């Protein structure tokens, strides 16, 4: 019997096993998983090469640099989405990419604005796959590059800011029993559905957007 003990995703790192007599490189791959495997086996061999993706390092104007940063941010988001694409409906993924393309269009950005943080997008994906809302949120980006999600139903509003490290910061305003309630907070993604329960989140998440 071989058991593994589930541990929280944060903090898990790969540890190379005892070195094999001779480590053989598999066929090249383009995915994050291929790079993970190659890096995790690096300790098995004295000399190792692994692929890195580079863009030109020649000096650029500030405007060109912004475009490059947005391009890289968008690319990272799409590659990260690919890693979980088997758990996403095709239509959802297509719509998400259209939203991201629009959000990251260079002519909508100021040169000093930071692009979307990859860690924020990672939190977003994990949140979406965890709560599985039927209605897609509107997307925005905070001044610090965090992805912001918004659901609105009538006068009821839920806004979620996806922070790095699997954290979300929310604010909501909704009517419960004829009274308006407001709440703000910050919590791990894992706790968020439980926190929302008392606010009847189906008002935001159910139905098609």
């Amino acid at each position, binding site marked *: 019997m071989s058991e593994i*003990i*589930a*541990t929280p995703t944060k903090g898990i790192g790969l540890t190379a096993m005892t070195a094999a007599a001779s480590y053989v490189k598999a066929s090249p791959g*383009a995915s994050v*998983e291929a790079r993970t*495997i190659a890096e995790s086996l690096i300790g098995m061999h004295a000399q190792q090469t692994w692929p890195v993706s580079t863009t030109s390092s020649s000096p650029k104007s500030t405007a060109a640099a912004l475009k490059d940063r947005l391009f890289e941010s968008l690319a990272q988001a*799409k590659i*990260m989405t690919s890693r979980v694409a088997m758990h996403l409906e095709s239509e959802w993924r297509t719509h998400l990419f259209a939203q991201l393309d629009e959000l990251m269009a260079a002519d909508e950005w100021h040169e000093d604005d930071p692009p979307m943080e990859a860690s924020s997008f990672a939190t977003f994906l994990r949140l979406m796959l965890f709560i599985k809302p039927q209605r897609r949120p509107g997307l925005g980006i905070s001044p610090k590059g965090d992805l912001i999600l918004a659901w609105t139903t009538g006068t009821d509003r839920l806004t979620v800011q996806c922070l790095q490290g699997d954290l979300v910061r929310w604010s909501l305003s909704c009517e419960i029993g004829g009274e308006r309630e407001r709440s703000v907070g910050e919590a791990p993604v894992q706790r968020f559905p439980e926190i929302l329960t008392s606010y009847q989140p189906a008002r935001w998440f159910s139905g098609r957007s």
Partner: protein
Amino acid sequence: MPLYKRAPITEAAIELRYEQELQKEAIDKLQSRFKADYQISEPFSFVDVKLEVAARQAKFREVAAGHKSASSDRVDVLLIQLQGMVCSRLAPYLGWDSFRDRAQRDWRKWKNTVGYRKLARIGVRYINRIDIPVGGPGERIRLENYVKVYPMYPEEDIPGLSNYTMQMQGDLGADECRIIINSGLVPSPLVRHASILLDIDVTRDRAVPQTEDEIWELVEKIRGHKNRVFESSVTDRARELFDT
């Protein structure tokens, strides 16, 4: 192999590797040729690390390796390398036929661009990630409930693993192919899940076919071997996850 609703494939790759490296000019020509098929193109390189233990030095050298061309959604990828072509599909995987057809199309265009050169290796690699739902931190998962490739260890001394990485390699015993299986735990991209990587790479580097028909006949055979190994490496309980 059955067609799963949520196939755990994170990458499928077909590699055709040359005996001798291409020149940089050929790489640039290929990159230009494929611009119409792939919207994204960026150079990529390898970092070569040499550890000189006696001198207590590590030398890093960035080696230009080629171009990475990709579709706008970053899922269809073509690696244009000095050693040859890698045609790759990331998730979502849409089936063998469309993937193989794209690889054949790209190889035909490739050969028309650089001409015939002797192949030294043909490989088909599928990287799978099996995402297993868990109740919460500390819950124990039995690897053998999901995969038949896992480490055995003395349970009385090691109560449970939190991490492992393994590589196995050997002759496949068919079609003069060799097999590499990489497996291990990886950080799961899903909340309250554990993820096992099952990476199967089947290759041939002896008496490598050189004609178009023979190359793709071998690729089909290799794919069949890969499927057989995959199906015998996972359990019915894992298959239920793929069909959810």
